[in-house]
C-alpha cells in the first residue's frame, strides 16, 4: 500500500512522462495540422475520450493501464495535468484559422506564405528598348 507522499511523487512522475511524450510528438510533427492533432489528443475533454481510445490514444491507454494496475488514484488525471502550471509548447489556437509556419515555409495554402523565387525575363519594353521583367512567386506550377 502506497503512502500519500508516494502517490504524489508517482503522480508527478507520470505527469512529467506525459509532458515528455507530448513534447516529443510535437517536436516530431512536420505540419501545423499534425501539431494541432497532437494537442487535441492531449487535451480532449473526458466526455469525448472514447473516440481517442479507439484510436489508440496514448494518454488514455496509459490511464487505463494505470487504473488497472491500481498503482494510482485515477481521479487525479489529465485534467489536473492540464490545470497545472506546465506551459504548453506553443500558444493554443483560438480557432482553426490560426496557421503555424511549416518547415517548408507553407502556411496551409495561404497566399501570403511560402518561400518565393525571383524570375527575371528579358523583354522589349513599350518604348521598344530592351529591358527586364522581374517576377516573384512560389515557382512555376
Amino acid at each position, binding site marked *: 500500500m502506497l503512502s500519500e507522499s508516494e502517490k504524489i511523487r508517482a503522480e508527478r512522475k507520470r505527469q512529467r512522462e506525459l509532458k515528455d511524450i507530448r513534447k516529443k510528438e510535437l517536436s516530431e510533427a512536420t505540419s501545423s495540422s499534425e501539431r494541432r492533432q497532437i494537442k487535441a489528443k492531449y487535451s480532449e475533454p473526458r466526455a469525448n475520450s472514447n473516440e481517442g481510445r479507439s484510436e489508440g490514444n496514448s494518454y488514455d491507454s496509459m490511464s487505463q493501464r494505470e487504473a488497472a494496475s491500481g498503482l494510482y488514484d485515477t481521479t487525479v488525471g489529465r485534467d489536473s495535468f492540464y490545470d497545472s502550471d506546465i506551459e504548453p509548447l506553443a500558444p493554443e489556437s483560438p480557432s482553426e484559422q490560426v496557421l503555424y509556419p511549416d518547415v517548408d515555409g507553407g502556411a496551409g495554402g495561404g497566399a501570403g506564405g511560402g518561400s518565393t523565387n525571383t524570375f527575371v*525575363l*528579358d*523583354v*522589349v*519594353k*513599350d*518604348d*521598344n*528598348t*530592351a*529591358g*527586364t*521583367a522581374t517576377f516573384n512567386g512560389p515557382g512555376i506550377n
Partner: protein
Amino acid sequence: MPNAILRAGPFATRSDPFRNEPTSFSINTLPVNCANFANYYGATNWPWKFAVLNQGEGQYLTQPAGDEQAGFSFSSSTGFIEGDGIFFAYQAATSFTLTGAYEGAAGSQQGSFITFDILNGDDQSLFSDTDNERIDGNFSITLPAATVPYFLYLKLTGEGSFIADTNINVDLII
C-alpha cells in the same frame, strides 16, 4: 500603353523564334534585336547584331555598345553585285520608323544599274531606289509592332563596269 513583350532569339528562323547563334553562318538564321537600341541595358546585355552577306561570304557582326549606327561597306571586284546586304530581325512593342542611308555606284556603261531594296521576310518591298549609274539617299520606313521576330533584308543589286561606293547604314536609335 502597350505591354512589354517577351524577347525571342537570340537568333531566329522564319519558323523558330528561339534559336541560339548557329555554329556556321546561315542567311536563314538571323539575330533578333530590339527595335530601339537606345538604352544601356540593351547595349550591354543584348548587343545589336546583324548578318552581312558580301560576295557570297556571310558573317554575323556585333555592334559595339555606344554606336548609334550599324553599317557595312560592300566590295565587288567583278562589276556585279547581287543580294549583298544587311539582314536582321527585330521585335517591337509598338510600330516605329527605321531610318538609315545607302549609296552605290555602277559605272556609266550602257545597261549598268544599281538598286537598293528593303524587303521583309515575306519578300514584300518596303523601300526601293535604283539608277543607272549611282544611288545615294536616305530611307525612312514605318515598321509594324512585332511580338515575334520580323525579318528585314536591306540589299544591294547592281551590274556595271564597276561596283563601288556601296554602303548601307542603319540608324539604331529611334
